[in-house]
């Protein structure tokens, strides 16, 4: 049975809430020192995204990743066409 886009969005929202609730419960169970809670993590993400060092690290990873992805795709397709033919 095909689900409408609204139903699919509702499913995604429900699953996301379930995961966050599970994460919060686990964090309370084993301690925030081992597993920070969702609000703590969200706070840290917001703080990190305003730090130039963190943005520099994201940029460094992003650049390396894009180059590696392009090479992997082009190289992989070329080798696949050669070996498959």
């Amino acid at each position, binding site marked *: 049975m095909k689900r409408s886009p609204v139903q699919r969005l509702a499913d995604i929202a429900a699953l996301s809430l379930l995961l966050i609730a599970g994460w919060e419960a686990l964090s309370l169970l084993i301690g925030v020192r081992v597993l920070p809670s969702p609000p703590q993590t969200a706070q840290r*993400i917001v703080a990190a995204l305003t730090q130039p060092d963190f943005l520099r690290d994201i940029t460094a*990873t992003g650049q390396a990743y894009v180059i*590696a*992805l392009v090479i*992997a795709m082009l190289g*992989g*397709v070329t080798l*696949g066409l050669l070996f*498959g033919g």
Partner: protein
Amino acid sequence: MHVLVAVPKVTLYPIILLLFGLGDPAKIAFGVLHGLPTVAIMTAGAVRSLKPIYRKAALTMRLTPRRYALRILLPGVAPEILASLRICFAFTLLGVLIGEMFASAHGLGHLLMQSIGVDDMPTVMAIVILLFLFAGSGSVALLAVINRLNK
């Protein structure tokens, strides 16, 4: 190529470091090492399962190998190449992050190891969640593109 997929690639990292040195070239090479074999295997499989009538039609029309590849082969295996892109997207990210963890002065992998070393769990979780959101949204977006092209 199947052997390369089966080998735990982290064991090849010292060789990669000797070949490319510390820094960006090594982590890019490690990312490529993770992503390339999967794409190659899926593309080769798609080429082998292409209907023989296409090859016969190309021979009948006396197409050059280049024209055969561009006009018949690539369009014929495009759905499988896009499917392999989804897998390559994840594996290449894994390779780049692992490369950064061991021998890089910058990047999220390096920051992750640094944060683990000083027991900064909020930063560790922040990086994990950001990577999860990036990889997840990328995969969903590629799946949407593949589904739209397959219609």
